[in-house]
């Protein structure tokens, strides 16, 4: 059943409405029998905080399609929130249009606060109490990410086992701002609702293989939560990192145009060429970018125009 999470009037004849689809299953039984102890479980699938991150859209569709095809195997409630920032998605804008704010820095919000704080507060109130919440992001348009789960270190204990079964390639106990204070994942965990972030692919894109990989992982998670009795795959055994010293950031030392010579997700050797920074004006190579370490290249530059300092990649040593 499609429900309104929060709706506010915009100035000129339009409402900003955030919706969810709430699907309840009873494992094939006509009602909720006591013999199915897990019917009360709730899983929230959340995406679209950043308006340019689209990988979660097809996942929302595919999860519902599979549940609809096998309703006898689903019990509990799944709440699907395809777009927490519908204006941003409509305007192809990462932040909240008109406010120029990153929505993932507005949580927990404030019921008596500004429009963005009010919306954040209502979203949080609605998701809170789920047995697990998954916040699906894509990368920005600048770098490509291997399919990965990110969790804040403070909440590793309550989320790590779930994160490992999501069929992702990498689980990163991450200390940077994307999972820190004012983010949805941090705030949900802080309020007692276990939550993890998916970061996958690249902005403004939706890759069918990512959809499939993550959907399989979500059904593994539902099975672990006791909400899915159908077939599932054996999830990938992800590489895990809880040590910031193992992460090597690679930045452009020169401005120019980047030509990739490696693939995101591959293992690289120290000294291996990852790409060239070229000068299209004079036809010269400005810089050969070589790997500073041996390891797993889990982030790689996609958008080719570089400033000095632009992120080129990340390696897990």
């Amino acid at each position: 059943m499609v429900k309104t999470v929060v709706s506010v009037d915009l100035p000129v004849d339009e409402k900003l409405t955030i919706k969810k689809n709430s699907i309840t299953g009873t494992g094939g039984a006509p009602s909720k029998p006591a013999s199915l102890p897990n019917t009360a479980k709730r899983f929230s699938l959340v995406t679209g905080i950043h308006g340019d991150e689209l990988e979660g859209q097809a996942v929302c569709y595919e999860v519902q399609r599979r549940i609809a095809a096998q309703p006898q195997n689903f019990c509990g409630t799944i709440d699907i929130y395809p777009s927490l920032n519908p204006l941003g998605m409509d305007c192809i804008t990462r932040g909240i249009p008109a406010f120029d704010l990153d929505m993932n820095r507005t949580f927990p919000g404030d019921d008596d606060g500004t429009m963005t704080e009010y919306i954040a507060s209502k979203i949080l109130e609605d998701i809170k109490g789920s047995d697990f919440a998954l916040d699906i992001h894509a990368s920005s348009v600048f770098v490509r990410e291997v399919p990965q789960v990110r969790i804040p270190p403070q909440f590793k204990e309550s989320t790590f086992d779930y994160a490992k079964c999501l069929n992702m390639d990498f689980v990163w106990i991450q200390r940077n701002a994307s999972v820190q204070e004012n983010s949805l994942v941090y705030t949900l965990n802080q309020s007692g609702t276990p939550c993890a972030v998916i970061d996958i692919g690249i902005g403004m894109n939706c890759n069918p293989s990512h959809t499939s990989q993550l959907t399989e992982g979500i059904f593994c998670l539902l099975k672990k939560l006791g909400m899915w009795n159908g077939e599932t795959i054996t999830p990938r055994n992800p590489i895990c990192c809880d040590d910031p010293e193992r992460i090597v950031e690679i930045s452009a030392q020169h401005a120019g145009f980047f030509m990739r010579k490696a693939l995101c997700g591959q293992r690289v050797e120290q000294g291996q060429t990852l790409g060239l920074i070229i000068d299209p004006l004079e036809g010269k190579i400005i810089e050969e970018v070589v790997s500073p370490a041996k390891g797993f290249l889990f982030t790689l530059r996609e958008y080719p125009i570089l400033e000095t300092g632009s992120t080129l990649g990340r390696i897990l040593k």
Partner: protein
Amino acid sequence: MNEISIIDTPAFYRDNFRVRGYTFGSGKKSVCIVGPMRGNEFQQQFIAARLVSRLEQIEQAGELQEGYQILVIPSVNPYSFNTKKRFWSINNNDINRAFPGNAEGNTTKRIANQIMQATSEYEFGIHLCSFYMSGTFMPHIKIFKSEMDYIEEAKKFKMQYVQIRTPRPFEKTTLNYNWQAKNGVKAFSLYSSATDYIDRTSAHTVQRAILLFLKSLNIIKTDIPGGYESVILNSQEDIIPIRASASGFFEPKVKVGFEVSAGDTLAEIHDPYNDKIVEEIKSPADGTIFYQYSDPLVYSHSTVFNLVLKK
């Protein structure tokens, strides 16, 4: 006056990204003043430029005390000014959310790091900054609550108000917070009444406040007339937000600085299709208008006024 290069980074498709500074006097690094980080902070850039000009006059007149150095960085973000973008032109990052920065990080973090490096040894840091929402303010100083206690020094600007605030999580990536937290710099954020247009009266108030501060520290000899006995405002207790319940055209009936009584009509919100009044915003208490929203269209729940409560 000496011009120094703080950042000079080659770009590929446009001219180098340059941040310049101007130093006055030599000796103890006393006060640094940092101008705009966002491309719409015209008023802040104007104030910085006026300050450079005034300090040059003071130095040439021999009215700068020996043994002190002042640094003014008139702009941290000329790129965004030139392309009429508010934030960093390629990725929309806000430089004032990138502190303390990182020498090996992305571009905005590198800029933040270089600003921190250039200013870390100064005893006092002044950032000419703007509010994230459009609107007009009573010119004031903001300082973050910390273990450092320098409220008495804030009063030396002789601005009408000194606002003291506990930093919110996202404010821990601002220049002001990191000046204090990382380098022990006594940091002040100076708010003018305007941002994306030039208000000469308010610019003068802020420029005068900085000169009064320099005079009180005995860094300049020049007599600077005027100033106020500052009122200390604790954000959580002395200032209340007044919000719109409806969306529509915003028609204020008061101005910043007005004294109002409980029940006074402060603004109307009109339906943008038929001009009917959809909300009358009344003052909930006696006080002075400290901030006023200024866009023609207002969104429901927006803060349209901040009121300094009458004591």
